[in-house]
């Protein structure tokens, strides 16, 4: 057994790691997995960058930002495996949400109308709305920016974005320090259950297949320890299959609810897994079938085009100056080559390509695969725009010309 330490934050999308440990998938692969709970992304990042852990459950944009030298000490990170797709929700205070569509189903299902309603609600609110985000380099923040910019909102001008850890969001809502927040599960459900907020949008309706957390290593360590890395990925891949199976959802919610992991009741964790989200306390749940994905549709495969979409948003929001070098570094964080090597014989469907046009699929589509049949689900952005990773400058020019 090879001992491996992996840092994680208490969130539903750490499920694959927790299942790998608790259901024995890591041990089956010859890995003695130790999970190190962290309470801030900064601390998780430091533990990874300074070698206190071998790998980490990390926000995909943060892994890229660290590699590009945008978040404290620069370090080349490598993400050969995605731990989740989708799973975030925007929660707003009842006072703010009063100006949104009162029909919760329509509000969630029609993000175009909801974005315009949100823009109007900003003007009606008694102050510039303060929205909690978990990190500037989070998928959540990028998704929020993308969504609101469509309706003419400049997130840096029209909103106050305040960084708070997910576990403190609900408390900050209750104290009136923020008017809403976007965070990963289960925190939106916790806020709704406590009656301090209601859903305004879910990320799965903004980008239908949005990249969320990845497993990241330090690049030099990953390359030096190829055999061990392959075993880790094999264990995680089996765990991801288990997490995605409907019949395991209740047990998974129970595992996650333990104090050592997420530490929230199983009944606020389960809805994200089943896709039946309560949008407002006391009302029937809204069904979001793709609320979170772990395995199906090759969910764990790190498409290099997805890393480039994240890079494009960094450029869009002036977090980095565009350059060919930064673009290449960003794409190289997502190591589809390592995924292929580790899981080539694991019996999981393997995409034929490593780049694709993001947002091009309106319906489930069979795609080229080296092994087994692979059908990708609809991956559209809510505004219908497609991201071609070979033409980033054009894409950004179109976005700003709106």
């Amino acid at each position, binding site marked *: 057994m090879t001992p491996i330490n992996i840092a994680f934050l208490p969130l539903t999308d750490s499920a694959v790691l927790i299942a790998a440990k608790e259901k024995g998938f890591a041990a089956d692969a010859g890995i003695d997995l130790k999970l190190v709970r962290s*309470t*801030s*992304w*900064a*601390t998780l990042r*430091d*533990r990874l960058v*300074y*070698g*206190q852990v071998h790998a980490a459950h990390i926000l995909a944009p943060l892994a890229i930002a660290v590699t590009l030298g945008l*978040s*404290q*000490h620069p370090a080349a990170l490598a993400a050969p495996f995605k731990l989740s797709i989708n799973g975030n929700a925007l929660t707003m205070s009842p006072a703010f949400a009063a100006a949104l569509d009162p029909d919760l189903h329509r509000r969630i299902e029609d993000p175009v109308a909801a974005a315009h309603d949100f823009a109007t609600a900003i003007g009606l609110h008694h102050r510039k709305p303060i929205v909690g985000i*978990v*990190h*500037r380099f989070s998928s959540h923040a990028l998704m929020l920016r993308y969504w609101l910019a469509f309706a003419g909102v400049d997130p840096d001008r029209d909103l106050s974005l*305040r*960084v*708070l*850890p997910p*576990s*403190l969001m609900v408390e900050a809502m209750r*104290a009136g*320090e923020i008017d809403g927040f976007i965070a990963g599960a289960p925190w939106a459900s916790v806020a709704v259950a406590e009656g301090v907020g209601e859903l305004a949008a879910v990320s799965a309706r903004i980008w239908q297949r949005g990249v969320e957390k990845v497993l990241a290593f330090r690049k030099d360590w990953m390359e030096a320890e190829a055999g061990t890395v392959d075993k880790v990925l094999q264990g995680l891949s089996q765990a991801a299959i288990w997490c995605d199976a409907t019949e395991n959802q209740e047990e998974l919610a129970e595992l996650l609810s333990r104090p050592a992991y997420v530490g929230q009741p199983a009944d606020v964790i389960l809805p994200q897994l089943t896709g039946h989200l309560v949008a407002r306390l006391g009302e029937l749940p809204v069904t979001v079938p793709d609320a979170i994905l772990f395995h199906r549709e090759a969910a764990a495969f790190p498409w290099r085009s997805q890393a480039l979409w994240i890079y494009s948003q960094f450029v869009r929001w002036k977090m980095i100056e565009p350059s060919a070098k930064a673009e290449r570094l960003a794409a190289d964080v997502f190591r589809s080559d390592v995924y292929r090597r580790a899981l080539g014989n694991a019996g999981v469907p393997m995409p034929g390509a490593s780049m694709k046009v993001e947002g091009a699929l309106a319906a489930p589509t069979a795609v080229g695969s080296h092994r087994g049949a692979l059908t990708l689900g609809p991956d559209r952005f809510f505004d219908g725009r497609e991201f071609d990773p070979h033409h980033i400058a054009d894409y950004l020019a179109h976005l700003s010309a709106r």
Partner: protein
Amino acid sequence: MAQLRIVIIDDSGLRATVLEEGLREAGYDDIQLVPPRGAFVARLERIAPDVVLMDLGSPSRDTLEEMLVVSRALAKPIAMFVDQSDEDMIGAAIDAGVSAYVVDGLRKDRVKPILDLAIRRFNAFSRMQTELDEAKTALAERKTIDRAKAILMESRKLGEAEAYALLRSAAMNQGRRIADVAEALITASSLLGGAQ
């Protein structure tokens, strides 16, 4: 050379005090404690520290780092203290649970003693905590054993030494700790409606 202004951001009042005392003994006078709650970032901007020491386990580190990126109030950028020549020190800081942010341009030899001291004090504090926890557990266990002894003395009409010997031999035979056997005895006795 001007005194360095140090801010300690910490949730635990006791640990922050332990650290502050140490710094004062070492001759640093300009120290402020800021709990990471509410508008602590605005306070920090007003204080304009040279060095910020923060518990690595605090969930508010992301909030602090965001402020370091966007704040216009700070005259000089503050970044995490990293002396790449000293990997051991970084490891020791993370192990001890210390993170430090330092204004740009501050000489490393002025910062190192502060960080060394913070590491020592944080370590001392966590040792103190462990010892305190152990002492509490030991005290609780002694009370349990005393109660179990009392039950045996009354129900079996034994002397104190004999009651203890009985507990000890039961524990040895079952390969369990005396406190665990005592706990089980108290539970069983209360279920049977016996003496408490």
